[in-house]
């Protein structure tokens, strides 16, 4: 039931968010333009204004949906795998690794495409985290979290160093946007990456995620229920890291979506992952679509990074969830 409502909500969100923006274009014209690009009818807009709809707004809204969904799934899975309510998608040092990749392109002038550098950085961080955790003796949740903290700190320190040492003029603004998380540059390639990641990694995770329920009482109980604990954990960790890495590479590290939304969904539908994961994905998509719409229209014609909006909404929401008895942290 909730699923149906949320799907309708998502479609409605996409349909309406794309009509909003600094430029004055009527809703009818916007939809006519979209239909035109889908092969139906002509666009009533000039080439330039049509570009606003089809090159700026449409890919951005779709990317927001995919990224929001991906981050919510990743957050929920990380929380289950590490049995930690404070886990988020970036737990394994992923966002720091991606930041390092991003600043090396933006500031050190390394000539790789930004999304590739960011994704590569995230993967390096992941490998480092897993190596450290296993070297400490076995991939337990607490060791993985601690290793992730170490790698995150290292990545953040290196990123800060690069910024401090090389940032000239107002180039730091671009880094700032990336670090806070921004969908401003999302074109159709970003749509391809983020939707591709959902299709290729996100959906399999949601299916495999059913076994996450068994982790609720620890590894022994899960093994006694027939789960191959080590293999399941590794597979889900790596898959989640890939999903997160892909999202971060197109949008920077948007915070709070992966941390807070799964808790909110749990409050309503409980912890069964077969239901939790898809619903979190839908809620994440809708949330980020509207957060981004706010980011680009609230102070029209100024734009701000969407990470600011998600933090401003997410932090109080998190406090609210904490104070409810049914959330255990």
């Amino acid at each position, binding site marked *: 039931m909730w699923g149906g409502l949320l799907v309708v909500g998502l479609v409605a969100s996409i349909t309406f968010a794309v009509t909003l923006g600094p430029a004055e274009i009527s809703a009818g014209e916007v939809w006519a333009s979209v239909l035109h690009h889908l092969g139906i009818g002509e666009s009533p807009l000039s080439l330039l204004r049509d570009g606003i709809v089809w090159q700026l707004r449409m890919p951005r809204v779709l990317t927001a949906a995919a990224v929001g969904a991906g981050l919510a799934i990743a957050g929920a899975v990380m929380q289950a795998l590490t049995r930690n309510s404070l886990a988020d998608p970036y737990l394994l040092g992923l966002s720091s690794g991606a930041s390092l990749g991003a600043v090396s392109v933006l500031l050190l002038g390394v000539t790789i495409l930004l999304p590739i550098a960011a994704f590569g950085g995230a993967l390096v961080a992941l490998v480092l985290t897993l190596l450290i955790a296993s070297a400490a003796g076995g991939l337990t949740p607490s060791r993985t979290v601690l290793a992730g903290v170490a790698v995150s700190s290292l990545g953040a320190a290196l990123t800060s160093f690069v910024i401090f040492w090389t940032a000239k003029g107002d180039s730091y603004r671009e880094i700032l946007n990336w670090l806070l998380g921004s969908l*401003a540059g999302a074109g159709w390639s970003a749509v391809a990456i983020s939707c591709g990641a959902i299709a290729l990694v996100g959906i399999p995770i949601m299916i495999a995620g059913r076994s996450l329920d068994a982790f609720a009482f620890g590894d022994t109980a899960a093994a006694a229920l027939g789960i191959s604990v080590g293999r399941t954990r590794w597979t889900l960790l790596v898959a989640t890291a890939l999903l997160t890495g892909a999202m971060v590479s197109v949008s920077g590290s948007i915070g709070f979506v992966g941390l807070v939304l799964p808790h909110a969904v749990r409050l309503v539908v409980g912890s069964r992952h077969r239901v939790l994961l898809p619903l979190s994905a839908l809620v994440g998509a809708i949330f980020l679509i509207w957060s981004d719409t706010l980011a680009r229209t609230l102070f029209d014609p100024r734009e701000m990074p969407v990470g600011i909006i998600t933090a401003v909404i997410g932090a109080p929401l998190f406090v609210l969830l904490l104070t409810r008895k049914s959330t255990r942290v």
Partner: protein
Amino acid sequence: MSLPTRLLPLAAAAACALALVGCANSPGISPEPAASVAPSAATDYPVSVDNCGFDLNVAAAPERIVTIKSTSTETLLALGLGDRIIGEAFPDGPVPDQWADDAAAIPVISDFAPSQEAVLALEPDFVYGGWESNFTPETAGERAALRDLGIGSYVSPAACKDDAYQPDPLTFDVVFDEITEAGHLFGVDNAAAALVAEQRGDLAGISADTRGLSVLWYSSGTDIPYVGAGIGAPQMMMDAAGLTNIAAEVQDTWTSFSWEAVVDADPDVIVLVDASWNTADSKIAALEANPATANLSAVQDGRYLRIPFAAGEAGVRNVAATASLVEQLSAIGLD
């Protein structure tokens, strides 16, 4: 957990020193160098000035001056005080040709905002900074601390951030007032008056473009553009050049903007700020690569104006820069 760790780079960036390296000179009319003048015996010391909310008292004409940012260096060079500069820091680009020789003799302390120790090691009696952020404990030192050491400090009034002091809007009169005030502080009232008169003359000689063209002042940023807004130096120069700024309604000196708003306005011309770390050509490439901005009429026809970064901030180069903009505009034909 991730938010605090990500604030580290944020904090670093906010506190970080920004280095500006050389770029192209502004073509066209340049202000002529004023003759070197000895401190005028007529200046009445001590001089007291309220500079950005700081009580500045100068007991005698400063002889050992450290400048931070190009605008400070250039103002002193234009007043003929080059030989009193014992060190400069944080240059935004090479000085215009007529001062190149004078400037060559000045040692560069740092390409970024200098540390307090580096400044003090030179034993200055005055520090002339372009931004308020040049005077923090991590950079040249807090102004009160410098005062206790007997070192005077001055921040370009156009860069004051406090509401009571920020020029709103910045006008040429404010710029000229800074020149006059600086001249007074350094004991060269005559030279300052001469320079201001010359600049006023040059300004009056600029015939603004009459076609009522709209303009985007594009400073930096690829995903979110950073542009000249309604109350700062860019607006001042655009007004004098006869251009209408599409971001004029934003009450700020520069602002983050949105490409959608740019495309919606479809400006007639685009001013590209040229800096070595972010060249005009790279901005053109960004505009052409973005499928939405690629169709802008200014991009399609290549209607670009260029201005060096240093000339885009309030200082002695603004008049010449405006003239250059007008000259570049006259070369652009529009129906």
